[in-house]
């Protein structure tokens, strides 16, 4: 079952959780490492990780060579779906800018070309 796109956006609508995501883009980390890297208390970090996990943005994994604890890593699927959303926004502006380019070059550009 996939979380909906609005759950994805809601989970990301918080600066601390965005910071967690940015941190995890580099490599998987333990909850305690995330807390210290972002100067969060451990309960606060756990709470944010819980929201991200329920939104399907991160998952826990047991590190095989380290018995000290589970690591969190990003799940790629929701990012791909959000990417699609942002692609649509980009396509909108790409087409608007295409229209702008046609307008500005037709009206002001031709005489200026070397």
């Amino acid at each position: 079952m996939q979380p909906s796109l609005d759950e994805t956006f809601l989970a990301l609508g918080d600066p601390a959780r965005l910071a967690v995501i940015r941190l995890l883009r580099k490599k998987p980390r333990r909850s305690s490492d995330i807390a210290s890297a972002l100067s969060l208390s451990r309960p606060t970090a756990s709470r944010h990780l819980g929201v991200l996990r329920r939104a399907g943005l991160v998952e826990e994994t047991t590190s095989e060579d380290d018995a000290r604890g589970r690591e969190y890593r990003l799940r790629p699927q929701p990012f791909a779906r959000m990417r699609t959303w942002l692609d649509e926004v980009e396509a909108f502006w790409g087409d608007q800018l295409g229209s702008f380019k046609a307008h500005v070059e037709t009206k002001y550009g031709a005489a200026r070309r070397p």
Partner: protein
Amino acid sequence: MSERADDRARVSMLVRVPPAVAFCAFTEDVDQWWRRGRKYRVAGKHRSIVRIEGGVGGRLFESFETSTGTKVHETGKITAWDPPSRLAFEWRSPNYAADEKTFVEVLFEESASGTLVTVTHSGWSAIRPDHPARHGEEAGAFLRRMGLWWADQMTSLRLHVEPA
């Protein structure tokens, strides 16, 4: 896999005019290049005018005549006005809740062959699911509709632009 962990959309386009000309045309001529039709304008098939008022605090808005008089949809206020290099404004679609907005920044950078125009549209994560509930609509449905709205817009824009 997660190149885009934030909520920005960014598009660049090279136009073969100097930055000052690009900035003026983008703002003063907005009605001439802004796509027409239901997908792009609140007025739909009726005539409307899109305007950008110069200066911080100015508005990006669309006005049109109806049987009950002139209607105005304010997309947002200008938040940065630095000709010829930068423009920023708020963006509210008609279906946003009163306190929802996203943000658009437009940069005009001089390049060897003209001006690189870059639009960054951000703030999508702030469109929170509890707001659409006030529209009497489920959050997921709201966002899907927004997504479809954009997708629809794209397709018809592309069809319009590509033969040119």
